[in-house]
């Protein structure tokens, strides 16, 4: 016995980073945390490898009872967590004793809270990953989001201590003015969108639809207009300008389904028959993970090299080097 689930929350899943890699050929997306910046920092705070299995809690968090002492850390969204009624600070490691109850409520800022446990969550590997893929009923804890009565097994830890904090400037910043500026890389199918359509995409405000989840983030905004490539094509591509012969989907692709753009996320279908004019690079996924329905996105085009540099910058922050020196704050 390690931790008992009293309440599962809205959708709390075991994830690891970078998730289930190398399984596209079997039809499995990677899964894994959406805000992998906050996720990795939670692990760093409890002395785990940055990618160790931990919990992703969406919008409404779980209630968990500790059956043994543990060191934990919460990062990401503020869900007004309490441990036996006392407020639990975010972004630092804390000790929980056997018998204590950790309760998370609804997110007041952000959307996803990450809970890491020293030693990691010790569920079996499936295709080399512990990440839950609910649609595939696999990974994580019995392939499902946490539910009442389940037991979360923990690994053993030898490197954990409460009271660890992060240095200034190492964690994801809040969006400026409540508007999310999201990096995008053009392609693979940007040449299906005409110049006016590309301009409209980059210059408009986009609203995140409530119909968004780990499969995809649906956006509401202006019309798309197309080039000849979309309108004059081999018939097997399909009728609508956004139709194309089924092709593999990059994760993060902005998939244009008719006139509705959907950012394909970590549990996406791995292939389909719609074009992907732009792709949100991995360095911006944390923004998706923390944005709430009806919030505004603005897209900023960056080069592949710029996106890769930002990815490296974030990865460098997700290490023990980001821990503040021990001692009183």
């Amino acid at each position, binding site marked *: 016995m390690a931790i008992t689930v009293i309440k599962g929350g809205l959708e709390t899943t075991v994830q690891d980073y970078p998730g289930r*890699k*190398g*399984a*596209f*050929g*079997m*039809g*499995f997306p990677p899964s894994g945390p959406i805000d992998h910046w906050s996720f990795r920092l939670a692990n760093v705070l409890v002395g785990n490898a940055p990618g160790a299995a931990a919990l992703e809690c969406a919008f409404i968090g779980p209630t968990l009872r500790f059956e043994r002492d543990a060191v934990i850390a919460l990062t990401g969204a503020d869900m007004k967590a309490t441990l036996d009624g006392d407020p639990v600070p975010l972004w630092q490691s804390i000790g929980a004793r056997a018998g204590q109850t950790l309760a998370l409520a609804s997110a007041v800022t952000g959307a996803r809270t990450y809970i890491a446990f020293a030693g990691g969550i010790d569920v079996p590997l*499936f*295709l080399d990953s512990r990440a839950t893929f609910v*649609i*595939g*009923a*696999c990974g994580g804890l019995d*392939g499902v989001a946490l539910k009442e009565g389940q037991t979360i097994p923990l690994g053993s830890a030898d490197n954990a201590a409460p009271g660890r904090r992060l240095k200034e400037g190492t964690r994801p910043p809040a969006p400026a003015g409540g508007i999310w500026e999201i990096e995008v*890389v*053009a*392609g*693979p*199918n940007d040449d299906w969108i005409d110049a006016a359509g590309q301009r409209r995409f980059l210059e408009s405000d986009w609203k995140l639809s409530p119909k968004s989840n780990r499969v995809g983030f649906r956006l509401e905004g202006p019309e798309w207009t197309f080039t000849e490539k979309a309108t004059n*094509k*081999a018939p*097997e*591509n*399909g009728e609508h300008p956004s139709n194309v*012969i*089924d*092709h*593999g*989907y*990059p*994760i*993060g*692709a902005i998939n244009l389904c008719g006139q509705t753009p959907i950012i394909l996320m970590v549990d996406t*279908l*791995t*292939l*389909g028959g719609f074009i*992907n004019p732009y*792709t*949100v*690079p*991995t*360095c911006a996924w944390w923004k998706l993970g923390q944005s709430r329905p009806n919030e505004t996105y603005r897209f900023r085009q960056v080069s*592949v*090299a710029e*996106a*890769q540099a930002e*990815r*490296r910058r974030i*990865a460098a922050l997700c290490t023990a080097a980001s821990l503040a020196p021990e001692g009183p704050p």
Partner: protein
Amino acid sequence: MIYDEPRVLPGGDTFVLVQFGDDARIDLNFMALGLTAALREDRTKGVIDTNPSYNSVVVEYDPDLIGADDLAQELRRLIEGLGSVEDLELESRLAYLPVMYRDPWTKACVEDYAQRIAPRDGDPEFVARINGLEDAAQLARVHSGTEHWVVAVCSTPGLPLMVALDPRCAITSPKYNPPRTWTTLGAIGVGGLSTSIYTTPGPGGYNLIGRTPVPLWDTQARLPAYRDRVVLLDAADRVKFVPVELEEFEYIERRVADGTYAFNITGYQRFSVRAYKDWVASLDPSERF
């Protein structure tokens, strides 16, 4: 069109899409699967995964291990090494899958759609009619008369996208518009030039012409075929549908339920594109079964 130079298009910071052409001719898939096999064999540094389809391959890479330009160069080197499409020989198993054509379950699914979403006649009859076939019985003969080439395993776990290898058995049909909201598990669907098998009970757009009682993936390893693999089929495998009636369908269902069903899969063949093309050239394409 087959591109003279395959296109390597960015998909964010960790993916590229390699496109061999812009239509669905099968040569493009042979090239895509040839590149997939070459990447597996080459163990190209930094390449994490591949996701092939009709005329393209998505390649996932680790930008800390290989830069975008170097990756594109490696991909072009491997594609050049493939030679012409006729030179390709691909590992290809042949799986015999039981199917009940015009089964009661997909019929009920289509009727549910007709009632709730949009009027619609029976799918097998519709597909037979628009393909100039006598009736749904001939559709079953034609559909089971060919090996189906697995273009990709994708979209949802274990789901194969397939095209008929025998041009005398090619059928084509428009997809549902609007799509179904649910689909019978194990349903055999046809849409465009393709056949698929629904491996999750989710939405779908293919016309439903039959159902298989066997699972195409199994995360619990209940059946012997799944002791050392999670999904039954790989891209470049072939599927031959074996028509069964209700009694046999239910017998197989019981064998699946008690964990004793043995799949019939042959694994000693390789698929030669040149031999295949020679064979196709020898056929009378106006013939129908």
